[in-house]
């Protein structure tokens, strides 16, 4: 069934599903963790961060209020942020929420704005952003979202699947951007992918 907008409850469901997907891939993400410190805890850190956000959203009860849901996502991930990747995730969510909270329903143009804001917020929170990491994949997803919005795409299934594909394509190229990744023959983190999963 084609749909063109997400309401508060649907956003909650998507968010919870994304968090579950992240947790399910936690060990695999831990194995990919080679930059900046190869301590193998990225998956764990991101899972803890997003679960804190999920809990805060679930504590709201069965609400459709986009503002409350976005605030909960943002403050929950801030509170529960662990590790560099957790902080990045909390910043992505913070930026996304700043746009999403002002709308009752999220359409493709609004999602493109929200993804842009997420990426801008994340990039601004560090003095020297490094390409070939989460940032690169997030930016690619946001740029693709903007492109699809400009093209007038309204169907969310099409939107999400194209954004996800772009994120995965760029993810595959990250070893060429970050030498240490190439050395380890590894790849970077799939934060955006889990955002888009539904």
């Amino acid at each position: 069934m084609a749909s063109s907008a997400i309401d508060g409850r649907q956003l909650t469901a998507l968010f919870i599903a994304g968090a579950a997907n992240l947790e399910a891939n936690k060990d695999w993400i831990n194995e990919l963790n080679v930059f900046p410190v190869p301590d193998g805890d990225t998956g764990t850190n991101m899972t803890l961060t997003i679960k804190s956000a999920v809990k805060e959203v679930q504590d709201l009860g069965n609400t459709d209020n986009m503002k409350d849901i976005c605030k909960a996502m943002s403050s929950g991930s801030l509170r529960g942020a662990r590790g560099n990747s957790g902080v990045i995730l909390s910043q992505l969510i913070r930026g996304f929420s700043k746009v999403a909270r002002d709308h009752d329903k999220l359409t493709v143009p609004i999602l493109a704005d929200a993804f842009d804001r997420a990426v801008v917020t994340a990039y601004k929170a560090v003095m020297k952003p490094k390409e070939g990491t989460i940032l690169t994949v997030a930016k690619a997803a946001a740029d693709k979202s903007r492109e699809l919005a400009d093209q007038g795409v309204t169907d969310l299934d099409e939107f999400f699947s194209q954004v996800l594909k772009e994120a995965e394509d760029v993810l595959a190229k990250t070893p060429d951007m970050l030498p240490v990744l190439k050395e380890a023959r590894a790849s970077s983190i799939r934060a955006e992918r889990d955002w888009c999963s539904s």
Partner: protein
Amino acid sequence: MKTSLFDTHKGNVSVDTEVIAQYAASVADGCFGIVGMAGMNTKDDIANLLKRESMANGINVAVSSKKKLTIDFHVIVSYGVNIVAVSDNLVSSVRYKVEECTGLEIERINIFVEGVRRID
């Protein structure tokens, strides 16, 4: 400028603490949530600048008699980040990078959050 020494079987190796501070600074550059170093970006930190010259980039490195390092970071964080997570991350990243690159052991890392800056 203070220096630290360690002996090898063929001679002495001396690493200037400024070099260690630079490694530490490069780690802070990549730490999410840190948007500046106090003493470098804040215009009203002249008192600190004048007091100790190694504060110029907000990082002070001291070497103990046992050749162990203590590193102080004076940072500015962005508003809306988890300060504890940012600090923990800085500590573990610095420890890894400095110990890996210099072979010197770090005894203590102190983080002073001197300010908060709105980035959004």
